[in-house]
């Protein structure tokens, strides 16, 4: 028995998601990534003396909608709290967050791993503000502070320690991110840090209900790293226990270059944040009618969309799940169906060639050079027999590369399917004349050779002959004369 199967991992995730509000959480500064340092600031987010925060109502709307999407309980009254610690990127010396009473409590996130559906319970979702950034480039003895990000609204989504494998953790994160994108409350960009993840990891004997001592792995900034970081942390903890040691409570950082986690600070070095209710803000009171109005504004979410795709378009479970996972892909699919009326063909092209080309080019589906309108145009050409399915492959590739529409590509390359019986007959006759031995064999009973003749005809016609017509004419011409 290997050491791994004696233990199971217990994983809880904390997601920090920046909200897509126009302005910051407690002042009117623009919430925008990438501006020159300290240009998106004002006395409030700079933490100058005497200034006061004013809550951004849009951020409240976004967190409530998120809570509703995850079936959380929306608190009729919640409070902000100060989390006190010193760091140069934290201008007030405290972060305005929530502690004893968050906006959202409980909730669940449905994930599918290896075909199995699981509901991962949420602990809470609360609203807080982001810190700025310390910049250590340039001179070795100087650090600079950019406070453009200070005060950006941040939503912290905390799961219960309910995940068991790195795969489940990634499935959970993807589901959370996709849902936030559906809601249009967070762009989910892990590279720019608008969607960040800390993982709490512990191990325990398989089958046990007890919770082991956890390590918190900070700021793992891609799905791949989340998977790696959790896997290697679980491995590390198992090794510690197997060697007779004990896991200690600490904060660790994932070193992606070496593929290991390293200790950042121990429990003894942990901050005492001295949380207390933020006296500069009144309690956040949510009117029931307002919450209900926001609930009515929720878009169709991934789970509902998946079911509808299967039901309405007759897609398989797998196809429906694939196409509903991300809002952009789902929208693309539905727009293509609306324009072409061909759900199955649309699904096949999107999941096949389009996804492959997008992956190769590293592009997003929303910015695909082949728009839903153009894909639908191509599907029409296939359906009405202008081009064959085979030719369509080449047409699609050309559309993707050139950005032209299907009709344009077909015309330019002369790819219109030949359906004219006379023209096909000529080719068929030519092929039969060129292959007398095979013809004799076929007529002698070797009917398998039918495919060979089809292939020859298609080749000779440059792939443009209508396959149905080729079959029909070949069958007639292969009959023994007389």
């Amino acid at each position, binding site marked *: 028995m290997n050491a791994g199967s004696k233990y199971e991992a217990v994983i809880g995730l904390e997601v920090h998601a920046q909200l897509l509000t126009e302005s910051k959480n407690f002042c009117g500064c623009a919430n925008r990534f990438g501006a020159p340092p300290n240009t998106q600031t004002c*006395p409030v987010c700079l*933490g*100058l003396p*005497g200034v*006061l925060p*004013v809550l951004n109502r849009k951020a409240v709307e976004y967190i409530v909608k998120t809570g509703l999407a995850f079936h959380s309980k929306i608190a009729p009254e919640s409070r902000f709290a100060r989390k*006190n610690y010193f760091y140069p990127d934290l201008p007030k*010396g405290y972060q305005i967050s929530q502690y004893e009473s968050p906006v959202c409590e409980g909730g669940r996130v449905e994930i599918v791993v290896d075909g199995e559906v699981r509901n991962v319970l949420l602990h809470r979702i609360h609203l807080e503000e982001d810190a700025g950034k310390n910049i250590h480039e340039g001179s070795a003895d100087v650090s600079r502070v950019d406070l453009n990000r200070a005060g950006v609204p941040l939503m912290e989504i905390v799961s219960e320690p309910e995940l068991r494998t790195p795969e489940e953790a990634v499935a959970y994160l993807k589901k959370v991110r996709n849902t936030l994108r559906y809601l249009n409350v967070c762009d989910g960009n892990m590279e720019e840090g608008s969607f960040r993840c800390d993982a709490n990891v512990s191990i325990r004997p398989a089958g046990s209900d007890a919770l082991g001592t956890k390590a918190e792995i900070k700021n793992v900034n891609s799905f791949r790293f989340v998977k790696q970081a959790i896997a290697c942390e679980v491995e590390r903890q198992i090794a510690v226990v197997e060697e007779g040691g004990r896991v200690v409570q600490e904060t660790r950082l994932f070193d992606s270059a070496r593929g290991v986690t390293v200790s950042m600070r121990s429990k003894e070095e942990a901050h005492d944040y*001295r949380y207390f209710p933020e006296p500069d*803000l009144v309690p956040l009171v949510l009117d029931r009618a307002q919450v209900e109005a926001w609930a009515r504004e929720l878009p169709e979410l991934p789970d509902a969309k998946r079911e509808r795709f299967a039901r309405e378009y007759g897609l398989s479970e797998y196809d429906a799940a694939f196409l509903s996972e991300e809002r952009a892909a789902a929208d693309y699919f539905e727009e293509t169906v609306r324009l072409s009326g061909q759900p199955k063909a649309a699904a096949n092209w999107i999941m096949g060639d389009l996804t492959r080309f997008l992956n190769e080019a590293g592009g997003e589906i929303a910015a695909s050079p082949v728009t839903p309108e153009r894909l639908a145009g191509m599907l029409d050409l296939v359906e009405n027999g202008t081009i064959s399915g085979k030719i369509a492959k080449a047409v699609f590739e050309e559309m993707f590369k050139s950005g032209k529409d299907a009709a344009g590509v077909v015309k330019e390359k002369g790819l219109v399917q030949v359906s004219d019986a006379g023209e096909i007959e000529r080719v068929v006759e030519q092929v039969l004349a060129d292959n007398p031995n095979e013809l004799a064999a076929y007529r002698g009973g070797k009917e398998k050779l039918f495919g060979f003749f089809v292939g020859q005809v298609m080749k000779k016609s440059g792939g443009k002959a209508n396959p149905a017509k080729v079959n029909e004419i070949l069958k007639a011409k292969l009959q023994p004369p007389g």
Partner: protein
Amino acid sequence: MSLTEKTAHELSDLLRKKEVKAAEVLDGAFARIRAVDPSIRAFLTLMEETARKQAAAADERIARGQAGPLTGIPVALKDNLCTRGTRTTCASKILGNFVPPYDATVVSALDKAGAVFVGKTNLDEFAMGSSTENSAFQVTRNPWDKERIPGGSSGGSAAAVAADMCAAALGSDTGGSIRQPAACCGIVGLKPTYGRVSRYGLVAFASSLDQIGPLAKDVRDAALILDAIAGKDPADSTSADVPVPSHAAALTGDVRGLRIGIPKEYFLEGMDAEVEKAVRDAVEVLRRLGADVREVSLPHTPYAVAVYYILATSEASSNLARFDGVKYAYRAGRPSDLLDMYMKSRAEGFGAEVKRRIMLGTYALSAGYYDAYYRKGQQVRTLIKQDFDRAFETVDVIVTPTAPTPAFKIGEKTADPLQMYLSDIFTISVNLAGVPGLSLPCGFSSGSLPIGLQFLAKAFDEPTLLRAAHAYEQASEWHKRKPPAAGEGAKA
């Protein structure tokens, strides 16, 4: 009577009748400041250039017939109120030469009303103290006796008004910092209801207790200033969206049938006999004016000082975290690393009392102590608030002494912080309860020191509070007395 001795409403009458110009009023104020302030030391920064412009604008406005009651009135600002373009120090080294790029909302409001800012006044560092001795820059003297403190923390504002260096001033009151110095200096000081006046631009000491209010020569001036600064401010979420009545219009002089409560817990065995007599005499005056005087109980009063020094210091420990040497203000030279920069900058920049309170508050909020101190403090605060709610079910106004003694001597209590904290024993509960309070003079000690009388009312009932105080003031002469020390130097 010289111009500088006049109240704001008296000056306003003269200005609007065009008997004097705002520029002349201002000349008088600055002449008075130059004559008197070298020995009083009320001001940290004079705003002569700003004031000249404001006075000129006031004169134009008066000429156009658009003057309000504060147009052309010389006013001083406590130096924890941010003033755009004028340094704001909080009487602390740590703010260095910090020049705010914004005005506090109350400063904008007074500017809009046409007031003229003569300067920024001294205070206990970050408003932490009861004597103004905790200023990092200077000790302000009481105009009635220069060996004595002017009270605090708004001691500079109180002394400036009492010594006629301005018609009125703004102060801030977290546990008595407007009312106690007003009592020490023989003037009127009003702490409005929490939320009545915007705190935006007031450098925070304890956010849930701080409130800005006027220090003035009489009740009418206090009411006029409150009229100008009260109201909801979108920049302060804790400012109340409660309609603002005209407070000046509430001064009817009539207290017949007004129910006045005397809390028995405020008259203790062994209290200063002269203070007790002055207050009881004042209550008699109110009774003779037709008020219905009765005893009330505020049973949790004995816990107020302890609760205050837990909650106020907790909030202060967090509010003062931003002074870290990173962004603005004071940074210690040659730190070895980040932690060293924090520690040295704060150790060198803050004074002893501020550091004491940061440590107290940090302790009270720490893991393992939070429940026993901060949370318990909040619970007792609720009980104190309920005391007032209950008392105000049976009375309209409560009357107490403002301070346990008249102004004490400079240096007398600096060695004993606990004795110093007890100076605010009668004013602190009011901030914890959030209700409005006003102090005005009700007599003098045998040593010719002013004694303060405190009026309290329920939240947002400043009209009744001011009406009662005004009626008493009309029936007494105490507010007309001028400090002897103020008579020195040139009279304008």
